[in-house]
């Protein structure tokens, strides 16, 4: 192992009067649990409101039973879809409590159940109405479509199918990101198209009922969250900070740092390790936004992001001219000091994962010897930003290890170190009392996390930020 034992200068690092990581973790996990409970209970609440309005009294035979079941599946499906909107809205409270990636993870998990519930809703109501009128469900399609607002509801369902199908992993890989993104934007239309039939057909959401008030409230909440946090806030912040490209600097054959200037940028990434979603306003790049981590904690007028050139989109990014206007959304993510739960800090970073790791180290208030950093690369070309990392480690009183060389089979380490019996614990002797921050290419990062789990590190001490390649 190439170990660079860095001398540790004594630094006046006051840890201030902030609560301990443990106390902050308890608070955060309480909020997180509360949000999770609210999310899951909203489904039963939908069913319960239906029961409370006397829905069961209408169940007299098979037809009315199917109809009631169809109504409930529709209600829960709608609840899931509104929940998905809220999860995708990047609401700061949700982001800080559970993390953007977990919120999006739950958003993804809900997609298929929501679609099945909505399709079940359609099928059950066709069967239920059909049974009540004494005709088969297929024959019921005709009369059903004559109901008001049914055409828009059918269009909404079709859009929903398109959105979910294009989001299936296998399908999504076949299309460029932009295609998926445009289709995904149709989900807003799907929600809007489905709304009228809920309010006009059937008695469930009839005027003057509690359910109508509740559901309209949910819609306002979900759509309001999207409008405010996805559109209004980013627009306002972009306008207020007025960011421009100052210079693009190549720091490795396929890695570029983009230096930015703007107003009051310190407010952008107060916590190092966060990412923002950037949009560069040139003819070739404005239609594509990129999530990129800050690679340095911003100063008042300057910020820096570092990006790996992977495809056409990022290559165009690296050619933007100085002065180009930049808009952004964020910052997002909890790969930050705020997510700490334990007294010690362990950072493992590889490749472009060095960017948030570097900002995390820079942005954290650390006692001498509190942090240990391991940086990893396959080749010498991949050691960009390492020199900065070395200086930072020195200044923060952190220990820095480096691991260079081709990756060993079934391991996240280099062949040489794996063969020598290096383990996570030998690099981080205090692992059990540490927060492990892992940042790098997805598969590699997952291998590190698997190793940490195998070493018995509890889930809340593992912080992962992966870059999909």
């Amino acid at each position, binding site marked *: 192992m190439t170990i660079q034992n860095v001398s540790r200068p004594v630094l006046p690092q006051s840890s201030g009067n902030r609560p301990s990581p443990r106390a902050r973790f308890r608070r955060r996990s309480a909020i997180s649990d509360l949000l999770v409970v609210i999310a899951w209970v909203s489904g039963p609440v939908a069913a319960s409101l239906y029961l409370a309005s006397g829905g069961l009294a*209408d169940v007299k035979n098979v037809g009315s039973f199917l109809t009631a079941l169809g109504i409930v599946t529709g209600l829960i499906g709608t609840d899931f879809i509104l929940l998905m909107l809220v999860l995708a809205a990047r609401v700061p409270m949700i982001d800080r409590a559970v993390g953007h990636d977990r919120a999006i993870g739950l958003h993804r998990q809900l997609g298929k159940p929501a679609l099945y519930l909505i399709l079940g809703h359609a099928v059950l109501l066709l069967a239920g109405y059909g049974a009540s009128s004494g005709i088969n469900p297929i024959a019921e399609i005709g009369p059903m479509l004559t109901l008001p607002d049914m055409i828009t509801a059918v269009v909404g369902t079709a859009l929903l199918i398109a959105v979910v199908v294009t989001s299936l992993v296998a399908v999504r890989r076949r299309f460029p990101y932009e295609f998926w993104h445009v289709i995904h934007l149709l989900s807003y239309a799907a929600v809007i198209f489905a709304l009228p039939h809920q309010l006009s057909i059937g008695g469930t959401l009839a005027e003057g009922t509690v359910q109508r008030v509740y559901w309209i409230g949910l819609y306002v909440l979900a759509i309001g969250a999207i409008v405010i946090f996805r559109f209004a806030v980013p627009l306002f912040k972009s306008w207020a900070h007025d960011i421009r490209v100052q210079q693009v600097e190549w720091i490795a054959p396929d890695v570029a740092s983009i230096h930015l200037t703007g107003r009051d940028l310190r407010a952008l990434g107060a916590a190092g390790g966060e990412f923002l979603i950037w949009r560069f306003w040139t003819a070739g790049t404005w239609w594509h936004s990129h999530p990129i981590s800050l690679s340095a904690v911003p100063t008042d007028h300057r910020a820096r992001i570092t990006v790996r050139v992977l495809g056409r989109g990022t290559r165009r990014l690296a050619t933007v001219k100085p002065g180009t206007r930049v808009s952004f959304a964020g910052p997002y993510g909890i790969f930050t000091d705020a997510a700490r739960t334990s007294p010690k800090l362990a950072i493992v970073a590889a490749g472009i994962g060095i960017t948030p790791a570097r900002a995390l180290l820079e942005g954290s208030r650390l006692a001498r010897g509190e942090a240990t950093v391991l940086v990893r690369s396959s080749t010498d070309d991949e050691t960009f930003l390492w020199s900065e990392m070395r200086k930072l480690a020195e200044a923060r009183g952190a220990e820095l290890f480096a691991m260079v060389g081709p990756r060993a089979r079934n391991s996240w380490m280099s062949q040489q170190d794996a063969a020598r019996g290096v383990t996570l614990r030998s690099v981080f002797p205090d692992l059990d009392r540490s927060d492990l921050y892992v940042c790098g290419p997805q598969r590699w990062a997952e291998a590190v996390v698997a190793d940490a789990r195998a070493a018995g590190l509890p889930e809340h001490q593992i912080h992962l930020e992966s870059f999909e390649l």
Partner: protein
Amino acid sequence: MRRRAAVASVIASAGVLIAGFQIGSAVTAARTPSTTGTGTAPGGSASNSGTSGGTSSGSTGTTGSSGSSGPAKDGTFTGATEQTPFGPMQVAAVISGGKITDVKVLQKTNQGGRSVQISNQADPMLRSEVLQAQSANVSMIGGATYTSEGYLMSLQAALDQAGFTG
């Protein structure tokens, strides 16, 4: 999901569902039309029929010899217009020889698309039930609660006018 959140979710969900069910049962019990007993107007006291507006107190209710079931007048008696979430509901009862011989639907629920469908299905079913039971005190049609409610209350008002006590 952490265990604490999972347990809390399950308990809260169960609580919410049970509460909903309880409230629903109470609401349903309250909504079931009470047994006929309003204003048993004797013989000739039924004043001009006709729609008596959006309230359910359609019967003219001049107190008479309570309980004594005088013979109902023959003729067509128009019930009150009952407002439902899906529009007004009004029926007329045809009484002949002391029996309900027909129920005519004058206004049917027409708001919200499906309610017309529901009304078209439920009305004949209610009619045949009423003719068989010779009373407005019949069970409501599943899936057509509001329609049934409006129908039967309007009918009751009409029967009251006729002095019909079954």
